[in-house]
């Protein structure tokens, strides 16, 4: 701690800035009153209300399904792209490929959303696919920007991996696909897992792109929450936030436990 010295204070304040709003939400989700600002007594009634809110739970399950599908697609695409970027050297067209893979990271969401919607409309007009819009178009859209994130994470991991490991496998008689599945992929597994989780979270969190490319009847959790917030704050939203925080904490704890170093 001595080396941190005067930096400990801004670090602590920074963390307070990041976590106080979340802690306040957790606290007030147990508030007895409908008032969202003054604590009157402990209650779990908002969690019960949340459970009975069919629109919200339905949207949650839809969002989870879309997130799982799109994250899986994004992971497949992103692993291939990250592998190509990290291992193929300077192939022709690499700068363009790298730029296209990285562009979704900084693209304003309104542009991504609008352009994908116009694409889907044009595709439907031209060859009738996708027929209408809903969960599947949202999943495609989310897979597109998710792939960019997975590619970045996987490329970073592969770049720091000793390339002679793959050479050694090939030298020992492993054919290129065997090298990939027996050496490269297992060693990149933490990054692949992290990439999947990142794509999953981004999908679960996305309001703007989903609003553009969704159709009638397919309302994701952020879309439902957004319209609820515009109508006013309720402790129910805090309860939802608390549950999500708990889920993330649980998932991280689990990942921590699974990935803990096992040394004899």
């Amino acid at each position, binding site marked *: 701690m001595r080396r941190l010295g005067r930096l400990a204070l801004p670090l602590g304040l920074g963390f307070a800035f990041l976590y106080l709003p979340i802690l306040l939400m957790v606290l007030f989700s147990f508030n007895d009153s409908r008032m969202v600002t003054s604590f009157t007594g402990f209650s779990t009634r908002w969690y019960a209300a949340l459970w009975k809110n069919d629109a919200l739970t339905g949207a949650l399950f839809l969002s989870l399904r879309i997130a799982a599908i799109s994250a899986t697609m994004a992971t497949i695409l992103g692993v291939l792209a990250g592998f190509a970027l990290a291992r193929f050297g300077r192939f022709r067209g690499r700068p363009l490929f790298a730029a296209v893979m990285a562009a979704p990271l900084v693209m304003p969401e309104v542009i991504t959303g609008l352009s994908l919607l116009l694409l889907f409309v044009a595709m439907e007009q031209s060859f009738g696919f996708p027929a209408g819009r809903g969960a599947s178009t949202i999943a495609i859209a989310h897979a597109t920007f998710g792939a960019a994130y997975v590619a970045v994470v996987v490329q970073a991991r592969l770049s720091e991996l*000793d390339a*002679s490991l793959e*050479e050694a*496998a090939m*030298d020992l*008689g492993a054919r290129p696909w065997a090298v990939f599945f027996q050496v490269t992929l*297992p060693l990149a597994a933490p990054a692949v897992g992290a990439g999947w989780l990142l794509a999953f979270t981004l999908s679960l969190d996305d309001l703007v792109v989903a609003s553009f490319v969704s159709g009638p009847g397919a309302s994701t959790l952020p879309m439902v929450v957004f319209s609820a917030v515009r109508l006013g704050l309720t402790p129910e939203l805090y309860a939802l936030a608390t549950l999500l925080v708990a889920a993330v904490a649980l998932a991280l704890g689990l990942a921590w436990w699974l990935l803990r170093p096992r040394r004899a």
Partner: protein
Amino acid sequence: MSLAAARPGSAEPWRDPDVEPFLRIEGLTRRFGDFIALDRVDLSIWRGEFFALLGGSGSGKSTLLRCLAGLIEPDAGRILLDGQDMAQVPPYRRPVNMMFQSYALFPHMDVARNIGFGLRQEGAPRAVIRDRVAEMLALVRMEGLGARRPDELSGGQRARVALARALAKRPKLLLLDEPLSALDKNLREATQFELVNIQERTGTTFIIVTHDQEEAMTMATRLAVMDRGTLAQVGTPGEVYEFPNSRFTAEFLGTANILEGVVEALTPGGARIGSSEYDFDILSEGEPPKPVGSRVFVAVRPERMRILRAGADAAFGDNRVVGRVRDIAYFGDFFLYYVVLEGGKELRVSQPNLRRITGRPVDWDDIVTVSWPAEASVVLPE
């Protein structure tokens, strides 16, 4: 000291015109952009050799090794291993295995699975793999450590696992890329003995890349000194050390005093080389590689020279020059004297540490006589 030279009955197949080389490299060339890493390299290596590629960084030694493994494709030239052209053979089908500089042990597999990796790729039966892994573990004296993970091993143990893994498929050719550079000095020396030992027991042909001249000298049957993508000299360690063919090899292997002069005349059994730069003639033994009248460089090893205070009686050797001691470096087992001659030329002379048995030692600013026998003057054919 050369471990290889001390081998019982070690044959020298490269001297026998009837024995075909096991590995033949012809005109091998490889460029990286504008940089020529290998420039038309020709080299033959015989079965059972322990061959060292010695050179500084950027000399092309690693590129040559990686071409042999198939990890780099040459731009031109051929590699013939046991009569078979390797050009179209991908690395995973070559009967060649490599011990990597970083060892490249798979961190997600234990020692036994690392060693068995190559055999599993061939689809060898489980029992065969198990037996071979046990055999390899015994070979590198790592019995009972098969279940360890690479990050639980010491540096020396990792080196042995890497060796065992590369030998497990019984390759025709084993390539070693700076295999001992990660080890500390004592461990490195012990492992050198062990490598030579294992090479003899398995009879495999080894090619080792190193920048450490001592390592190459101790282990190799023959070595090649590489410089800017070419082979500067190929020969046994003794040949290359005693009879360097160029300034580069003379100065790269050990240290050498390089004197410049002109072949003035042939003498009985040798030559006289004179120079306007110095006030003395250099006597050498044997017929010089260049005719009378040509300009040559002469290499003299510091340890072949002798240094005595001027006026001391015991004159020694055919060549004798007088100079002043500018500096003395103490190395423990020997001293290195920097002696400035009259014309300004500086010689390095080393003497074993015999301080206790000689009289007053040579000291700073002493006027000294440096002498050496004619056979120590190597006229470079460069």
